[in-house]
């Protein structure tokens, strides 16, 4: 049983070197930088260009048909009755349903001629940096289960998220920052925090969500009124008591790690606010991301922060944008969503490029599934679309992805992927590959089995790789 030993030794490393997790945010602390703990940088399995990943998650399921995968056939079918057969119908699909044309017009952009809905006014500038993937399919038609599958590979939640796997596989590049940061929406998505959980991986690989309200990290500072001096003096007493105690228990090696974790925590209090402060950015940069404009401010700040974090070596940043579940009034709803992300995303890609970071930063844009070509039509006006696990558009930029290409295709109504069709597990395996990780080697022994992100293995989608 060699794996049992390996697992136990994992526990051991875990407990004795725990304090480097959440990674010491102390700038220039050499001990932390030289750490050999669970978060120490690890060699890649396969040489790769991408070192970091920014994962832009549009929750609710953006419509591929109304963004990047135009379906002119729907113009002819508009308001013709749509039928779906089979026992796999959910109650959602009751009532008469009709094909619905896209309310958006499309144009091709860049040398690649990638089609985009016209409301992508900014993103169209960087069309040639994007690699569109139209072949992805997921298993679930429901938000939380589809979100879990997109994030963790398993529909039922509880498994480690992609970012946790990547941090487990590669360690943190910069020991002064957490390896995996999540920038959530104001409200948590359906399914909640397990979407960025570490699952059965040790807690070192957990995400650090930076909260949009209140303290960005819980308990980062003591209650109001507690001065740094007062805290320092409390900490000194604690340290002294802990040292005396450790003297009586020389064989108990966890004591040192726990003692050290307090010192790290104290220093983090002053370091974190600086690390996430956008005020040193130039006005031009802020403007380019749309910071300060009401429609783009929230997402613009997050994209800018994502760039900053990646620049400092954070391995994996997941940025959330909510509200894409347009069952009705898709023109209005999707227009608003696109407006809130279009400029920030374009700015992010251009900014990364200008700083020579795009090559080493894999940017991913996707939702948990695509949308259907049909809908129940409410009163003849509220054209919208339902969930569709069989077709979606994902795009990649940078990080060795196949810029300027569109991979895969959906059928003429956008109902299902028909070319280069891949289960989302293959997409996961491909992302890992772009980051230099082999899904078959990136395993963790848990509950009697070596587990992996793809659950049972998947195929690299070579066409997505440059």
């Amino acid at each position, binding site marked *: *049983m060699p794996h049992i030993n390996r697992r136990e030794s994992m526990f051991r490393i875990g407990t004795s070197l725990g304090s480097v997790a959440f990674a010491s945010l102390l700038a220039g602390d050499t001990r932390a930088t030289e750490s050999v703990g669970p978060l120490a940088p690890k060699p890649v399995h396969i040489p790769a260009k991408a070192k970091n990943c920014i994962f832009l998650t549009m929750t609710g399921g953006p419509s591929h048909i109304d963004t990047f995968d135009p379906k002119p056939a729907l113009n002819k079918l508009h308001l013709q009755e749509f039928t779906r057969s089979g026992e*796999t119908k*959910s109650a959602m699909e009751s009532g008469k349903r009709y094909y619905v044309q896209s309310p958006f017009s499309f144009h091709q952009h860049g040398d690649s001629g990638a089609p985009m809905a016209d409301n992508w006014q900014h993103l169209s500038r960087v069309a040639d940096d994007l690699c569109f993937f139209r072949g992805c399919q997921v298993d679930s038609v429901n938000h939380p289960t589809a979100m879990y599958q997109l994030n963790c590979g398993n529909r039922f939640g509880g498994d480690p998220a992609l970012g946790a796997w990547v941090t487990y596989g590669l360690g943190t590049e910069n020991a002064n920052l957490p390896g995996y940061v999540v920038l959530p929406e104001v409200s948590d998505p359906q399914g909640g*925090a397990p979407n960025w959980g570490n699952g059965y991986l040790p807690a070192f690989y957990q995400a650090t969500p930076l909260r949009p309200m209140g303290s960005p990290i819980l308990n980062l500072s003591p209650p109001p*009124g507690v001065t740094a001096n007062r805290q320092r003096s*409390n900490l000194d007493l604690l340290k002294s008591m802990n040292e005396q105690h450790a003297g009586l228990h020389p064989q108990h090696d*966890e004591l040192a*790690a726990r003692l050290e974790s307090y010192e790290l925590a104290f220093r983090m209090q002053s370091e974190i606010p600086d690390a996430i402060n956008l005020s040193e950015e130039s006005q031009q940069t802020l403007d380019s991301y749309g910071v300060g404009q009401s429609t783009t401010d929230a997402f613009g700040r997050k994209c800018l922060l994502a760039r900053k974090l990646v620049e400092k070596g954070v391995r994996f940043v997941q940025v959330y944008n909510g509200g894409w579940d*347009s069952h009705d009034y898709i023109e209005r709803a999707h227009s608003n969503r696109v407006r809130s992300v279009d400029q920030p995303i374009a700015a992010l890609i251009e900014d990364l490029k200008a700083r020579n970071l795009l090559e080493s930063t894999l940017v991913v844009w996707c939702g948990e599934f695509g949308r259907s070509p049909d809908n129940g039509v409410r009163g*003849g006006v509220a054209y919208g679309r339902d969930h569709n696990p069989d077709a979606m558009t994902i795009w990649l930029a940078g990080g060795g992805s196949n810029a300027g290409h569109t991979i895969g295709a959906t059928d003429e109504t956008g109902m299902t992927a028909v070319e280069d069709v891949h289960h989302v597990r293959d997409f996961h395996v491909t992302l890992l590959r772009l980051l230099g990780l082999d899904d078959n080697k990136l395993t963790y022994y848990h509950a009697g089995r070596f587990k992996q992100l793809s659950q049972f293995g998947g195929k690299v989608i070579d066409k997505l790789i440059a």
Partner: protein
Amino acid sequence: MLLFHRTILGFGLLVFAGVAVSAEYDESALLFTRHIAPLFREKCLACHGEDVEAREGGLDLRSLQAVTDGGDSESPGVVPMHPEHSSVYRAVTRTDDAFSAMPPKESESLTRREIGWLHDWIATGAEWPTEKIQEAIRAEYGNKWSHEDGIRVQTSGGLSDSWTNRNYDPKGLWAYQPLQESTVPDSHENPIDGFLQAALPKGLQVAPPASRRELIRRATFDLTGLPPKPEKMKAFLNDNRPVKEAFHDIVEQLLASPHYGERMAQHWLDVVRYADSSGFANDFERGNAWRYRDYVIRAFQNDKPYDQFVREQIAGDEISPDDPEGLIAVGFLRQGPWELTSMEVPRVARQRFLDDVTNSVGETFLAHSLQCAKCHDHKFDPVPTRDYYSIQAVFNTTQLVERQADFLASENRDGFDEERFLKKMEQGYRESLQKLESVLQKNAVAWYASQVEQALPERRPQILESERQWKKLRAKAKKNGKSTAFQKTRAAVMKQGVPQSDVPPSRVGFTPRQNGMQRVATKGLQRLKWEFDRYKPFALSVYSGGTPTYEKVLAPLRMPQDSAKPVVEKMHIRTGGDPFAEGDLVKPGVLSVIEKHVPAAIPETPDGRRKAFAEWVTDSKNPLVSRVMVNRIWQWHFGKPLAGNPNNFGSTGGLPTHPKLLDHLAAEFMKNGWSVKDMHRKIMLSEAYCRSCAHPDPAGLAEFDPEGRAFAVFEPRRLSAEEMRDSVLAITGELNERVGGVPCRPEINEEVALQPRQVMGAFASAWVPNPQPEQRHRRSLYILKLRGVRHPMLEVFNTPASDFSCERRESSTVTPQALNLFNSKNSYDRSLALAQRAWSDIDKDADNRDELALRRIYELVLCRQPEHHELEQVLQSWRAVEAALPREARPDGSVPLTASREAVEELSGERFMYDEILYANQEFKPDLQPNDVDRHVRALGDICLVFLNTNEFVYVY
């Protein structure tokens, strides 16, 4: 051709040789039959076999011809006599850059022996005898080989013959063997010590006994999750009897403590994944789940025989349908996350329940992760897919229900008066809908006006007709329901034949905010239906019958009028795990690998399947169930189990380090009426349990027991999250010691409490703490456990989420723990409460009151008295802190009365805001706050904060 010929020749020989005479076979043919064919089947054919679509790299490993041809790489898979030119061989060595390593999963790499066989097989000519010849070879050599290669096991049979006939390494089959009664070594009084001694690595010393202080602290935390009270500690230290005798009394007292049941329940709830909500899109509250939690507490507290405990959880409703306890106990079957929304396919949701319950029963009671056999026969263990679905068939008639079950006298109904806050919320939502209704009514009038004005002349009469109908039908609709009159009018008008396009849209003229508010109120009312169930005499339960057809489940499910009505479904093997696939029909059954020891007879009637199954599980001849439980109990004391994975006794789980001891304990367990308390006594009174954490020869320990498996020294452990929180409350004197009852809501970080949480169509309500301190300061076991919101402190100190069964907790040290314990408002509040307690415990006229207060803190937190130099140091710190503090403190106990919500409204994609009213906060009574005490005590609060953060407090030795 030559190869083909030789194979024919082999066959010919056999025919002539008949059965009695040994045939001569080529070494290569023997190697193939014995090792290579099974190896290919097990490790390669899934991707290089029959399924053309699944075939990787175009390589087919089913015949010599195909292998020789090779795959897409066009290099031959096998070149007879030349392993070094054979791509199959080169790939499995994993060191050859030209070929990707195979099998792809590193953890499934071939062993050196397996690679050797492949090498030798190719080097000896890569013979590939026909099936018939292989059969003949097996007939001749089978016995000899099975002796060397492992053994065959009888099961209900796999999906393929090769699985059915495969061999197992006997080591991995230990758990299926009947309990082995071995002679108890007579070296020690306690058999546990005898067995441990017998297995102790030669040359390894054991640690000396722990001190009395360590011992009582260890035992008290282990059995109650709380620290010993100072008077208990003093009494034990001053007890003149030998430690063994005195400690025996301590164990007895602890087993009788009302907190014993709570502590054991915590362990059990980890295994069963207890939660107060259902997860997924809606995360609806399971209002009655707490009654199952309390059932578990009662069961441990009353030392309910474990076999009965198991039977009740599987089939309490069938065993005692008239006893609320039985109906509550089967809440076990409901612990997995589950929902059915209109977005989901009912059959898929039903299958999810069946899969969940099948696996859960397997992991919890039989230490078998049965889900491994859901899509294919178990890769490593003798668990065929047929067994998986036979066991699932036991639950095929199990239906979900929130079922009438009267409250028991022993159930704690404190805090039921808080239902009033739910009523206020309900009222609020109704009023909101009422307002929106009048908006719709007004907008409808405006809509008709504008339609009439804009309509083409030929359409105008239709609109006017619609309006006429509207006015006529509106009055009636208003009479029937004030807040829904608009929708009712709309439906009634359409029923009169008015087309949808001529009536006002269902949300006519709504602004994004009004759209949002309507969703919030509608959803809020829906959610409240589940929350009101907390206070009603219903149980989270099941019944036996046919599967009803639901489209969606948006309110608690009550017992149907006629539970037999829907037809009982037949159970098919769901081939490949596809809920729509219909493979072979199966009958309700059990784990067939142990059926020969424990025969089962499960009826096929809807009722009684689970009862019969539960009896099979707890049959004294079942080799799994008793071992599984004593292994868990052992781990609850020593921090690690005897068999490495308490949820997995299969071949991939850790083998028992002390199999004889495990079997001895399992047998004793049953002999003593499945008494869990008796098992605690046996374990805790052993020398091994009473050992010190300090080993006299650390170098020897590292050398002779590098894996720490000998139990030669006691391993210290960090307090679990719950122990930490509960102990702090006990120490400050704030702990409400009432056992059981509706879930409580302590104060948590505002960022988390008010964090908006999307549920289907709207938001879940905020986390609003109980207004009364004593309701907030209940044991952590009672904290409302929502799948969608984790309690921040419990989460950071490794309380497991409710997604999977937790067989053993992690206790990694990460920096957020320090932030939580050192910075949180909760820590400051508790520290102040402790300071106040310690200060007021001392006579106010005592002239060394400061010193006595500090001594009090030492005994409460660290269970000891300070050394002189310690006291001096702490006194000095106290004075220094006090000097630096301002004379007046600002009040800090206010709570928000509303929570501002901002979200994207999905109909428009626009943001909207609203305020959620936090009703319970209107009556909030804060804990002791800094401005309630003087500066001296406030400064002592800081000292207490330090104490509660010390390693000495958070570790148990």
